[in-house]
């Protein structure tokens, strides 16, 4: 187990290094820079700006400088927000996205697993069809359709919530529902598939033969195996949901990290692009590691191998 974790961490660090290097050079080769704007700054001002941010040094020197400050945990200053550092921006916005993500995930799991389980247990009944229809709708209708529709109904027509913003606790409801809905759909389908497979296995039949109640069979015996596909899906999904959703954050004007992730590339905010990419990469690697460990615990057939 320890060997597995050490080996995977080392692999992840290597992958992270590749990601950082590739991102650093790719964003630099994109046309345009952080200081190109509709109104040009004079050549003198541009030179001052580049000198301030060290952009006048050779690229390899900038790369080494960046790695050096990264090793000290410093992600550098933002170009777009002149008096803020990337560390500050991430510290400000990641908790917002994480809070929204956690709420949405809780909702998605509760709804998705319940629906998926019901669909599997009552396979080919109207319950199954309803749940499957829900799954198809959830997967095929994008959040930028559901989001504004819910806002029209609940915020503008009924006046229950704010149409956008992140000011009071009630502002969490609509975005968490919309984002959760998008994740609940695949979770319900994965749960259904996993449960169907498990419910056919011998140990379930044995449990039934022993007279175990159907409810207990589902909750105690089948779910653990039936949720395996969901768990492997959750690794990247949790990383995605925690680091924010550009679309949801834009529709509801949420000050999360998801918008920075996209906008920093448009702004050519080199350091912020790198900061958000590193954050995302680290989260995905860490969560995939967690998923592997959890899967081994849930399914004795899975072995952890470095």
């Amino acid at each position: 187990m320890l060997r597995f974790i050490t080996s995977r961490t080392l692999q992840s660090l290597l992958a992270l290094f590749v990601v950082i290097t590739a991102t650093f050079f790719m964003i630099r080769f994109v046309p345009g820079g952080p200081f190109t704007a509709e109104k040009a700054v004079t050549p003198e001002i541009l030179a001052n700006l580049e000198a301030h941010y060290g952009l006048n040094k050779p690229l390899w020197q900038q790369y080494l400088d960046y790695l050096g400050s990264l090793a000290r945990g410093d992600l550098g200053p933002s170009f777009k927000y002149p008096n803020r550092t990337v560390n500050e921006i991430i510290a400000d916005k990641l908790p917002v996205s994480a809070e929204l993500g956690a709420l949405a995930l809780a909702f998605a799991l509760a709804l998705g697993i319940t629906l998926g389980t019901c669909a599997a247990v009552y396979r080919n009944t109207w319950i199954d069809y309803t749940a499957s229809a829900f799954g198809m709708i959830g997967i095929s209708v994008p959040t930028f359709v559901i989001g504004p529709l819910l806002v029209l109904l609940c915020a503008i027509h009924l006046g229950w919530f704010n149409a956008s913003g992140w000011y009071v606790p009630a502002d969490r409801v609509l975005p968490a529902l919309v984002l959760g809905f998008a994740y609940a759909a695949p979770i319900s389908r994965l749960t259904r598939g996993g449960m169907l497979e498990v419910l056919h296995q011998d140990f379930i039949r044995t449990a039934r033969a022993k007279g175990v109640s159907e409810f207990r069979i589902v909750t105690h015996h089948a779910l653990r195996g039936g949720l395996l596909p969901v768990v492997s899906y959750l690794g990247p999904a949790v990383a995605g949901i925690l680091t924010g959703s550009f679309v949801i954050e834009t529709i509801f004007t949420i000050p999360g990290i998801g918008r920075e992730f996209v906008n920093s590339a448009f702004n050519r905010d080199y350091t912020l692009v790198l900061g958000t990419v590193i954050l995302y990469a680290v989260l995905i690697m860490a969560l995939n590691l967690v998923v592997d460990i959890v899967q081994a615990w849930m399914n004795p057939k899975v072995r952890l191998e470095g």
Partner: protein
Amino acid sequence: MSRPVPRANPALGPLADRATSRRTGVGSLRILARLPRLLCAALAGLSLAGCLKRETAVQRGNREQVLHRGVGNEVTELDPHLVTGVAEGNVLRALFEGLVTEDPVDLRPVPGVAERWELSPDGLVYTFFLRANARWSNGEPVTAQDFVTSFRRILTPSLAADYANLLYILQGAEAFHKGTNPDFSRVGATALDPRTLRLTLEHPAPYFLSLLTNPPFYPVPLATISRHGSAYQRGNPWTRPGRIVTNGAFTLQKWQPHQVIVVEKFAGYWDAATVRLNAIHFYPIDSVDAEERAFRAGQLHLTEFVPVGKIDAYRRDSPHLLRTDPYLGTYFFRFNVRRPPLNDVRVRRAFALAVDREAIVTKVLRGGQRPAHALTPPGTAGYTAVARVPTDFAAARQVLAEAGFPGGRGFPTLELLYNTSENHRIVAEAIQEMWRRELGIEVRLTNQEMKVTQAARRAGEYQILRSDWIGDYLDPATFLEVFRSDSGNNYTGWSHREYDAALFAAARTADPVARAALLQKAEAILLAEVPFLPLYHYTHVFLLQPSVKGWHHNLLDHHPYKHVWLEP
């Protein structure tokens, strides 16, 4: 309806099947039977809750004199010397005040920190007399020295302020900023005593007072800035709430990035008796659709934008909420005159004549824009260009024939480049069609992401380029300077000695009539040479609650907050 789950083992099958089918059958029936009643209850609940709407932010704001303003884009910074955007300017005008400020109706310069001023007969030396009761939010008086140190800060090269060149109007400022003269005492800004400031200009400039209302000319509290880092370097976090010291009618209470900026009335402001708003909340909502929804939900008194697709619906259904104010900006295409056949003025002229601007603004954009036949928007500080580029298809075909392309025959396919945006696309498509129909010329449309377009513009790698220009101050010079040969914003490769000379002379002419004549001459040259194609002058289209009072139409979209109030 309910079918038993198939079993692998027939021995156990029937028993299990029966159990399952009975349970599902009964369960589903029971829920089905309850469904209509549940639905009715839910609907009743929804409609009841609909009647019990909460008080909206706008309603409460009207009672408490709190203005909720959408500012569009994210406010990146509140340091007056480092900001460049419109959203930042709209917040800073509440927090800081320059030597002069603006009349809410016509933007005429009126006393700000300076209670009066004198101008020397040659139009070069301004002497400002500061009022005794102008205060910083920490209680200290605003002095002439504060302005001198502030001008010195923005002109210091290490700060790398984007708009430092606006101060080049001050004598010697350019040399100091470019490092050729490191001695600030040779720059034309001197504090004669704590309440007297003398500013010496490089050349007479009738728009100088209007320039002073812009953030780069605001005083900043140097002592406070130095407490949080170097005052002459970027990355100093002195503008955070609790640290920032300001001198305007409002003080900063809260700044949550991408959420809200809250400013409250400053009791120590010299003109606090005039200020009627108790607070302003600024919301940076960068999605126009989200902003419009927030307005409809009663969260905003006014928006910064309106989605183009909704303008007609508002005009039809709630015209009292829609405002279309003329705005100091022009939308145009640049021609790259270094590239044949665009190096031929007759070809450029044919393109410029063969555009139905009226159709573009009334049929394509529909936001009340004005067709542009010149570069400077009409009525800019009393100036309206006499020369104009008309719309005349017959003349267009004729000059094109004279250039050697009768009926567009033999004309190469040109590329029209625009940055990716729905609005730019529909305009470009309309013009592509007009040129095809009227001139027989085929133009290829290409769109690129904004920064890529800007890189192509700088490298001169385009043929026809979508562009625009928003004036920095109320004067034709802010537009005409764009196409000066040595302007960093020209980009067309076009240069004209007489044009440059006319602008140079205008900048050194104190007599307003003679100056206007020189500017007219320059604009006439520009419109005869057409290195660009004027399309329309901007309007600022936004939504405004009728409860907001004192929000006057003006070209710069500046609304001094001390003259704004709310009437429920």
